[in-house]
């Protein structure tokens, strides 16, 4: 077991005043079979305390509105999480599993991804197939920043041949579902990385196994999970709707360190 | 519900303003049109240009024939009577449950009458119906709307518009003074925040030997 300390800060600056803004933040690590949240500290630039809720995937939500002209919005969430080397997470509610079997949102395969899938000829157990998928993807897809964005679909990212962790995860999910393996998208953080991270979980024999295709590794105790869903859209870390604001600039800093 | 939103307040006010604008400009158009019938018999008359000047709208018409058609009926022209009636309808249609279907129907009937007047060779007969319907609307609004606040907001709009138009027209001191006095209790009972000082100031302006009509217009427009 490791104890990890995390720190997530987002700062948004608007070139013109915003009169009202609404926000939804999904950035609190859930308790799972693998991780336990030990303490958190949440600071928001909003005066009023946020409302708290959970979405249908169990992700925790902070939400609210900021009234009155403002040009900055920020939130900061920090805390400690203990992480086990547990192999997998339990299956969860049976009735929800179907959600992860069908193409959805950004993780919908097109012709080229389907053609690639046919070349894979996966064999063995679901776990073996998942591991093989991850290795192949790591080999056949290139990491490159700033060529895709948060709206890029699995098919588009695949055609491009390069992308970032979100694209790796979407492609892996789309392929796993083609193989008939339920797969879900995970948004989280990783020790030593300055950004949020994303990977995939596949439902193999007795539970959800987490694969990180960007790094070609099975997730153990260096990853902190923040949110889960069918694709990136289900677990976006923040959403804002505002009146006014002009041009916005956004700064995110993330750090995860191991505590002694 | 007992309270009324900003959006609803604005709609009620403008419903009052636009119905008044249609009513008063129609009355002026009547007398001006009557003069125009005789025009051409004597040289140098130009009733329509005087009319534009009087009600303070740009003269974009060029001739009395164009004016007679475009000023009342051209829906593309934002200053036309029809456009103002359409704006009244735009507000009224958003208020059915507040003012009631009966009251709303008179605005609708005014629109139908306006459409008939537009294609008529003797538009006065149908324009009279437009006026009748607006008067009926005011009657039913007064009689049938339960909420006193709602009634008073519509009337406040109507009174502001009347004062505004009369000041632009440069009517006599007595008439203008009377309109200020009629606005005063309405706006007080409307529940809307307003600047009571402006009522006082307008009264002072009207009592001066030379009335600065544009100042009165400005004060009326900014009272809320």
């Amino acid at each position, binding site marked *: 077991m490791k104890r990890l300390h995390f720190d997530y800060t987002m700062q948004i600056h608007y070139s013109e005043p915003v009169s009202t803004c609404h926000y939804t933040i999904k950035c609190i690590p859930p308790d799972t079979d693998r991780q336990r949240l030990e303490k958190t500290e949440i600071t928001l630039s909003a005066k009023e305390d946020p409302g708290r809720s959970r979405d249908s995937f169990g992700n925790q939500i902070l939400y609210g*509105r900021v009234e009155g002209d403002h040009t900055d919005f920020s939130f900061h969430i920090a805390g400690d999480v203990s992480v086990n080397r547990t192999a997998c997470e339990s299956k969860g509610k*049976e009735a929800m599993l179907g959600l992860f079997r069908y193409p959805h949102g950004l993780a919908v395969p097109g012709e080229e991804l389907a053609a690639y899938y046919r070349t894979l000829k996966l064999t063995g157990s679901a776990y073996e197939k998942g591991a093989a998928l991850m290795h192949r993807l790591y080999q056949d897809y290139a990491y490159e920043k700033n060529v895709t964005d948060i709206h890029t679909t699995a098919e588009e990212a695949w055609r491009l041949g390069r992308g970032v962790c979100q694209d790796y995860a979407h492609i892996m999910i789309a392929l796993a579902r083609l193989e008939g393996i339920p797969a879900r998208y995970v948004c989280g953080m990783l020790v030593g990385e300055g950004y949020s991270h994303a990977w995939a979980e596949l439902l193999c024999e007795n539970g959800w196994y987490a694969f990180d295709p960007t790094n070609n590794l099975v997730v153990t105790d260096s990853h902190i999970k923040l949110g889960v869903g069918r694709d990136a859209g289900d677990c976006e870390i923040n959403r804002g709707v505002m009146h006014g604001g002009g041009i916005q600039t956004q700064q995110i800093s993330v750090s995860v360190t191991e505590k002694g | 519900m007992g*309270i009324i939103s900003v959006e609803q307040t604005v709609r009620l006010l403008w419903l009052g303003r636009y119905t008044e604008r249609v009513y008063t400009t129609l009355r002026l158009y009547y007398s001006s049109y009557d003069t125009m019938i005789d025009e051409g018999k004597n040289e140098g008359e130009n009733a329509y240009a005087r009319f534009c000047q009087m009600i303070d709208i740009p003269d974009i018409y060029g001739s009395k024939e164009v004016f007679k058609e475009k000023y009342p009926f051209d829906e593309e022209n934002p200053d036309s009577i029809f456009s103002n009636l359409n704006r009244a309808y735009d507000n009224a249609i958003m208020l059915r449950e507040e003012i009631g*279907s009966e009251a709303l129907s008179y605005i609708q009937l005014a629109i139908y009458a306006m459409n008939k007047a537009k294609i008529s060779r003797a538009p006065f007969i149908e324009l009279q119906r437009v006026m009748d319907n607006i008067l009926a609307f005011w009657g039913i609004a007064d009689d049938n709307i339960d909420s006193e606040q709602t009634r008073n907001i519509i009337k406040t709009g109507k009174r502001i518009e009347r004062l505004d138009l009369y000041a632009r027209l440069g009517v006599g001191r007595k008439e203008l003074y009377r309109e200020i006095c009629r606005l005063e209790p309405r706006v007080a009972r409307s529940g809307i925040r307003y600047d009571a000082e402006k009522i006082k100031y307008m009264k002072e302006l009207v009592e001066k030997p030379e009335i600065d009509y544009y100042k009165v217009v400005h004060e009326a427009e900014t009272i809320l």
Partner: protein
Amino acid sequence: MYNYELLEHTDTVNELLARYGVKFGIYKNNTFKEQLFPFDAIPRIIEKQEFAGLEAGLKQRVQALNLFLRDIYSDKKIVKDGVVPEDFIFASSGYMAECEGVIPPKEVCSHISGIDLVQGKDRQWYVLEDNLRVPSGASYPMIAREMCRRSSPSTFENTLLEDNRNYAQLLRRTMDYVNTGGHTVILTPGRYNAAYFEHSYLAEKTGAHLVSGAELKVKEDKLYYVGYDGRLERIGAVYRRISDEYLDPMNFNPESVIGIPHIYDVFRKGNVALINAPGNGVADDKGIYYFVPKMIRYYLDEEPILQNAPTYLPFYKKDMQYVRENFDRLVLKDVAEAGGYGVVFGEKMSKGQKEEFIRLLKREPRRFIAQEVIDFLDIDILDGKQTVPRKADLRAFVLMADEPLVWKSGLTRFSRNPDSFIVNSSQGGGFKDTWVLSQ
């Protein structure tokens, strides 16, 4: 059987409807136009006994559909028990993951259901479509009845029929039943919506306030109406006439400017009723339609009283075979389309078109349903002084309050075009009052 004097007053009734602004909006070449909804004075008359049968069937159907919706967004027993394949849930465009685990107040999902029926030449009624999202149309027969009574009182003096102007009371009762405390409002996307007349008329008749999204706000997990001076009034029920997608930019489409940010979060906490509940699209999908009789057996353990039109799902091999062999007598419908769009008749296709369509069917078997073409019982409409037979359907309204309530009337829509089967108001056509006899 009834006094035909009413028919002489068709024009008067239509004039009155115009006076009260009974219109619907349409977009033609990107500009908004308001059109009158032409009224035909010959009523559709349904005998007391016959309607009693429809009523029982409609109650049963809507109860089953409500149970289905509750089940789908929680345990999905009907899927687990193999009655409805998972494909028809998760691959349906109407399914909304956001509704998983969310329990609407009093567990009512479809408060107002519009069930479209047609009558065949054999006098048998068939359900064509269930509308469980934002069905519209009740206001038209309601106000038409009022105007008919004014235009021809004698027609109504000696006719024993159910008064359909009680729709507002039924609706009020339905809204009050699920209200979580506070006022009830009707939320409209605005006057440029096709059914804006209905929104405003139902607001007037039920005494609910008509509001736009900008007049409401969320504060501390509750929903409020914002007064001119900043005062707040709690809202306990929203009869929303805007679609799920646009309801809440923070939970659904972020581009929506007509919705209310976080209203869905309030709903999730049980602090406001949304009428109808979000996510109902999964149950009025044309693919799911096929399963409604099975649902009735599954949830209620009863035999369905109302018939579906005979329907085949190319998704099943056996049905695909049938569709290919009988292509010419079938009508094919795209499950994702509505309003009369995406409907093609096998007999009207050329050989090449047929082959192409069958290829499409094989590629996307879940996308289409095939139905036998029903031999409609035409009903008479006035064409000048004459009567001519035309195709018509009936939209029945079922409201779910403390018990299911069937409105003793309905919207009868007809097609003006003698060859057309499509009766939607958005594609031309008019409407009739529906009389349910009380004796």
